[in-house]
């Protein structure tokens, strides 16, 4: 057997591709579900936290900063294991899907909060003053003047963060969430061949390339000519 056939046999064995195709497809569906749930709750929670921080109530802001720094500092894998194996000891049993969703949402929220907060701070003071001087209240100024400008500035970093976090859905493997990597490693150990892993990698590419393209499109779409 020459090197080329051995390579193909290890990573692209046609018979295994056919056998594990349905399992990888199921894994893709699960990955999409978790990723979508994480993106929605993570970004929303991050935005809410950033908005709460604009009220500048010191103890609450301090709590937010602690939350943010903690979830940015800890490796997501540690959090996943801690929550999944720790919570049952105090009587809370969450399905593995829920654990992954909650942990990744919190991690994304932590990063998103920092990005949104930086965006809010970067809006010149004069924008607040102009709106407030016409009698527009704090919340309306935030909603119609500051956030629309701040969010536009944050599209690129939020997209990057979102990509980074959603790829962490692969951590579901260690707690038995049947997402792509979980299906792929199961296939790999049954078949004793890396082909299911290759299929998993291709599945990730298929899933995430459109997100990258979408992010780029959003970035151009939300740019406006600056004064």
């Amino acid at each position, binding site marked *: 057997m020459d090197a080329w056939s051995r390579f193909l046999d290890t990573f692209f064995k046609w018979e295994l591709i056919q056998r594990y195709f349905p399992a990888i497809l199921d894994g893709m569906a699960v990955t999409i579900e978790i990723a979508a749930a994480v993106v929605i709750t993570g970004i929303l929670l991050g935005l809410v936290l950033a908005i709460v921080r604009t009220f500048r109530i010191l103890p609450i802001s301090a709590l937010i900063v602690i939350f943010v720094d903690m979830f940015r500092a800890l490796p997501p894998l540690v959090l996943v294991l801690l929550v999944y194996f720790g919570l049952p000891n105090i009587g809370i049993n969450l399905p593995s899907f829920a654990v992954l969703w909650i942990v990744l949402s919190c991690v994304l929220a932590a990063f998103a909060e920092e990005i949104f907060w930086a965006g809010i701070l970067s809006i010149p003071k004069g924008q607040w003053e102009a709106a407030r001087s*016409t*009698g527009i209240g704090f919340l309306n100024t935030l909603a119609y003047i500051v956030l629309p*400008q701040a969010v536009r500035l944050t599209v690129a970093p939020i997209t990057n963060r979102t990509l980074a976090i959603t790829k962490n859905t692969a951590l579901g493997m260690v707690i038995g969430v049947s997402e792509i990597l979980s299906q792929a490693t199961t296939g790999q150990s049954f078949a004793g061949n890396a082909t299911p892993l290759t299929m998993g990698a291709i599945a990730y590419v298929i899933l995430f390339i459109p997100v990258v393209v979408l992010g780029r499109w959003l970035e151009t779409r939300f740019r*406006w000519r600056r*004064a």
Partner: protein
Amino acid sequence: MNDDRPPILEVRGLRKSFGHLEVLRGIDLAVLPQELVFIIGPSGSGKSTLLRCCNRLEEPTGGSIRIDGVDLMARSTDINAMRRRIGMVFQSFNLYPHMSALGNVALALRKVLGRKHAEADTLARAALARVGLAEKANAYPAELSGGQQQRVAIARALALGPKIMLFDEPTSALDPELVGSVLKVMRELKAGGMTMLVVSHEMRFARDAADRVIFIDHGVIVEEGTPEQIFSNPGEARTKAFIAEIAR
């Protein structure tokens, strides 16, 4: 001006400190209806702070401010309701970059006066027409010249029907050839009977449009009088020195 009408703006004993720095040290000032009062003074003299206290963008440390008889500092006073009666124009325009000229003017009409979309747009177009920018309603700030941007900012304040307009160095950020268009609008406002308090270095404009000129230095009013008195025959040495300085 000897006049029995109650003032639109009445400032008494106004003080403002930033930490240990005392910027305003007891200002008394009354602006009568339809009067155009000009505030001049060296940079750091407190003139912008005085203006910004008049709608509480800066929180005064002491003293009282009345607008149209209403105590601006009273706890029962709704500051947002008062602010729509106090138009403010900034040195750096501060237009909303993500909204068209029309959107900039219409927003407060909807959010503060509670007008419907179509009604707010009609009123906003009328305000833009007053500053000569009816045809620029759909332009974004970045597509407008500095002079046009400042006129949109004036229209934004004007649309709410203010009792008084505060101008904080409205032409300082403009290229010289664009200053005229903004001053023309201000002259028209004056002719239309608007009450105005203006911080500016446009001495020629002050001479032929202002009713009174106030010279402020180190947080106190040093001297006030007609433009003729202040510019041609100032009584105080400090005023003299400042006038000589800016006339160069």
